[in-house]
């Protein structure tokens, strides 16, 4: 299972510090993808990503976990921080958008 956390940052002019804000969490488990969080709608499950190792154009239908690992390559502009981690087992993620490649 792959967990992808999307966060953003706001600058606090008073403290001169960045404040990290959650955007969304994506869980790819087998062929299923769940997206939750305060800005879950910002993250599209339909983006294809070029795999830099193979140059394949990878979509969610090519394997949700493979696709999820590549998500940092889809969000390169710097305003979304994308952190990918492998997790051992599913954890409750609350209300979430749920996408499946199953017919």
């Amino acid at each position, binding site marked *: 299972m792959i967990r992808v956390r999307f966060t953003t940052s706001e*600058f606090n002019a008073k403290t001169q510090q960045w404040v990290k804000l959650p955007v969304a969490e994506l869980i790819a488990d087998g062929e299923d993808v769940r997206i939750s969080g305060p800005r879950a709608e*910002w993250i599209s499950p339909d983006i294809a990503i070029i795999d830099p*190792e193979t140059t394949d154009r990878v979509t969610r239908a090519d394997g949700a976990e493979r696709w999820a690992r590549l998500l940092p390559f889809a969000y390169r502009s*710097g305003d979304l*921080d994308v*952190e990918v981690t492998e997790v051992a087992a599913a954890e409750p993620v609350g209300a979430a958008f749920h996408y499946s490649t199953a017919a």
Partner: protein
Amino acid sequence: MLAEAFAGPPAPTSSPGVNATKRLVLSDGAVVFHKPFSGVHVANALAYGQTAETPPLHDAVGWRLAAALGEPWQGLVSPCVLRDYAGEDGALSLQAPGWPGDLAPTLNPTWCLPAAFLDSLIAQQDRHAGNWRWDGNRLTLIDHGYAFARPDDILNHTDLLAARHSHGATALLAGERQVLKRLLDDAGLLGIASLLISDRARALRERARQMLARDEVLRPGEF
């Protein structure tokens, strides 16, 4: 506005190995992103037919071309210049208003038509809803690192151009013909040719010529 001094530290990042872009604040309060040449993910750039140097360069050239074309294209692209931060040369772009992931601009001709024209002209290879921002009223295009492609380079997404085609609006508008003529009438492509590697400048000229000759935007992936 992008010449102001930097204020404070960069925002922390969780994935520095993949994305070396730094989020920073300028002294006037503007939030900016610095994409250093040294931070280009080389394998990813090569996969797109780019080089280790072209993504930050193309970010800035994308803005320069939009500015040279004038409105409405200038207002569509987030301003971007080449500038160093902490001793690293790179592209510095202004944060765009709005949010990612919203498909509303694909249904709005005011924004979709000029954006699709620009993406066709610059041979944008990766325009998906994560690479634009929409604030409910205004579209801003960001990330032109994978653009100025050459024939046979790969296409990942060109969603706004695909939308213009799907709406049957491929024919050039009067203002589009006008700027293509202006671009082609200038030997230096309005100052852009000298900023690009020569084969990419030739490809830009050929796309402009093709668009004008056929009186339409090019097909997705037609670089």
